[in-house]
């Protein structure tokens, strides 16, 4: 860590912040106990309480549109002022045809706009955010939208089926002086690590067994968080809130503790027990829940993790505009409270696991 210096921090020429943010979580919930009932006679330790399940007519495009509309309501800018709409996901509805053009069309941001789909497992959303920060911070754009959204699938009976949820968030990045939260700096730590993948045409992902924990999740989040805090001369105590990628309940709790954060600091953003692992949406939807309750001056550390593998770490300071903007759209907890339990059979139907032909 001794070679870390300010050159490793990603900081734009012009200060950038979050002008608007919006979350989305589908209505349906599958209790983890239902997966255990069907596949292990109930003889499994449950990694979460329940996960969110999209309805029959939902996908990453429709969910991104709702989160984007919420972000635009808070930003209160004309969609014609957006110069980028970028969607990070590992469950885009089409193999070829961008999700981002559909989202941009639906929110009225076309045609003078960059549109692209990002892919980096669970950090595709924060990758798009970092790019948007650069796009705005360089002066190329006044506003850029970055979205992380997923409707992840696990193989029936696999450990991932208990947690693979649906949801995510959208952010409008813009000039810091118009922002409800300032991006102080970001830092990214990336290596080639075979912890998790899905080949083309494969419906379900594979995980590299012993690679998933220490060399992947913990290594990358620890390195990213420590380097960012060192370079910004901050420590865990300087942050009111922290949120980490949350594939299950234990991993973010453990990594938080390893970095010196308390349970209180991660409580607001720890949503995985009640919505599951939302993949590209997981860290950032935690950030939306934090912004829903944060006060001006509060500092937030966010660190994503994407398999393959890498972490993006963000140091964020909440600004005055949060107070007047947060209630211009539903809070994340409003979506979490809207909740209809379903059984495994309904889940199997909603997720297309019942073959019709």
């Amino acid at each position: 860590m001794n070679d870390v210096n300010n050159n490793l921090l990603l900081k734009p020429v012009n200060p950038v912040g979050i002008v608007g943010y919006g979350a989305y979580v589908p209505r349906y919930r599958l209790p983890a106990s239902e997966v255990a009932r069907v596949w292990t006679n109930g003889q499994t330790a449950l990694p979460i309480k329940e996960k969110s399940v999209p309805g029959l007519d939902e996908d990453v495009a429709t969910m991104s549109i709702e989160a984007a509309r919420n972000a635009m309501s808070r930003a209160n800018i004309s969609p014609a002022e957006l110069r980028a709409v970028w969607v990070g996901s590992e469950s885009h509805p089409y193999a070829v045809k961008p999700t981002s053009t559909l989202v941009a069309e639906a929110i009225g941001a076309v045609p003078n706009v960059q549109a692209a789909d990002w892919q980096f497992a669970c950090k595709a959303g924060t990758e798009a955010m970092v790019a948007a920060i650069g796009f705005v911070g360089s002066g190329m754009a006044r506003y850029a939208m970055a979205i992380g959204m997923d409707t992840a699938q696990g193989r029936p009976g696999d450990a991932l089926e208990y947690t693979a949820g649906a949801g995510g968030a959208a952010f409008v990045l813009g000039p810091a002086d118009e922002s409800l939260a300032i991006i102080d700096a970001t830092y990214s730590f990336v290596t080639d690590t075979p912890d998790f993948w899905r080949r083309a045409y494969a419906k379900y992902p594979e995980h590299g067994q012993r690679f998933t924990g220490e060399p992947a999740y913990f290594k990358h989040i620890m390195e990213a968080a420590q380097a960012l805090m060192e370079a910004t001369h901050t420590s865990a105590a300087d942050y009111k809130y922290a949120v980490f990628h949350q594939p299950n309940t234990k991993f973010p709790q453990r990594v938080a503790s390893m970095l010196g954060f308390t349970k209180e600091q991660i409580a607001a953003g720890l949503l995985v027990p009640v919505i599951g692992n939302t993949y590209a949406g997981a860290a950032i939807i935690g950030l939306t829940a934090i912004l829903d309750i944060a006060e001006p001056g509060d500092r937030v550390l966010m660190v994503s993790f994407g398999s393959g593998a890498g972490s993006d770490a963000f140091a964020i300071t909440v600004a005055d505009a949060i107070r007047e903007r947060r209630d211009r759209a539903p809070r994340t907890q409003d979506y979490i409270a809207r909740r209809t339990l379903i059984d495994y059979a309904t889940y199997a139907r909603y997720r297309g696991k019942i073959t019709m032909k």
Partner: protein
Amino acid sequence: MEISRHWRLRKQRYALVGEVCPHCEAKLFPPRDICPECGQEARTLYQFSGRGEVYSYTTVYEPPAGYEENAPYTVALIKLEEGPIVTAQLTDLGDQPVEIGTPVEMVTRRLRQDGDERGMIVYGYKFRPALARVAA
């Protein structure tokens, strides 16, 4: 295959974009370029708020071709707060009962796929019960 029709209708379908009459302020949906209130030309685009209430509804158990995967589903006449009445599917009902007067809001959802699973996905407006704001 109706790709050109899907493409032509995308603005009104994705985002409930209609028209407003420059002469009498009437809001038109779907857009029809002639104001039904005053008979004059009305081509100014208008973004509807998406809020309205259930005017009437029925549940479909025998769906037309292309909608089988969603059955049973509820179709409603929605009275938009700007005046027009539109026909659309209700979604995200969960175990919530539908009643005449239920406040609803527009969402953009998958309507169906054009042909089989190789065809394009058709997206458009549906309405769901207005999301309750419970978090303080």
